[in-house]
């Protein structure tokens, strides 16, 4: 399992290769991409910040949840921080599973959990200003409690 916060460009092909396994029939990759627009404003670039020790710990926790729910352990979750240009990937999730339905469910779960609990923040920089964006999917308490029930 690869759980990493990095300042470097994320190498998605390398992560796909890393999770691949001769017993797994399905490989999935998700990339979250820096968009050139946000609510009608033209975005020049993004800056991500993280609480890195906690973020890697939370990625490992999400990985353990996925292993417990679906038995999927060929999993990589990498979040990039620092300055990102438009079209660069901020987040990559890659996994291999024996069955496609499990793979899709686990990949989506990883993404939703990351959006809900990972201490990572995004600042949008426009031509005339900048702002730290508040994620609408943040839900560290309810979801954590619900999942432990």
């Amino acid at each position: 399992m690869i759980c990493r916060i990095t300042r470097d460009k994320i190498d998605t092909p390398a992560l796909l290769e890393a999770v691949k396994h001769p017993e797994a029939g399905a490989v999935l990759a998700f990339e979250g991409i820096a968009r050139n627009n946000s609510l009608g404003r033209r975005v020049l670039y993004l800056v991500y910040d993280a609480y890195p020790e906690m973020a890697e710990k939370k990625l490992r926790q999400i990985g353990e949840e996925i292993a417990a729910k679906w038995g999927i352990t060929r999993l990589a979750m990498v979040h990039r921080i620092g300055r990102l240009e438009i079209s660069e990937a901020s987040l990559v999730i890659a996994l291999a599973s024996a069955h496609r339905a499990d793979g899709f469910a686990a990949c989506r779960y990883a993404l939703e959990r990351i959006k809900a609990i990972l201490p990572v923040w995004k600042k949008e920089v426009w031509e005339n200003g900048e702002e730290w964006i508040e994620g609408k999917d943040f839900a560290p308490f309810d979801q954590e409690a619900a999942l432990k029930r």
Partner: protein
Amino acid sequence: MRVTVKFFAALREVVGSRELQLQLDDGSTVASLLERLSREYPRLGALCQAAAPTVNQEYSSLGAELHEGDEVVFIPPVSGGCDDL
């Protein structure tokens, strides 16, 4: 007792530093720490209303008691992951 408070993103810009070392009374809670920070950094209070407190890298609550050496971070709504808001 002594605790460390770390700041990220918008909070770091408001406080103007990455980290504070604070001396607190025994029995202090996350809430009393937040009250003290809000007095010293008036703009911080509003930002922390929507924030989730963490103690030693686990989500916590305002009522939680603090202990010697704890690391406290207030986590404003996170926006990690994909950019599809």
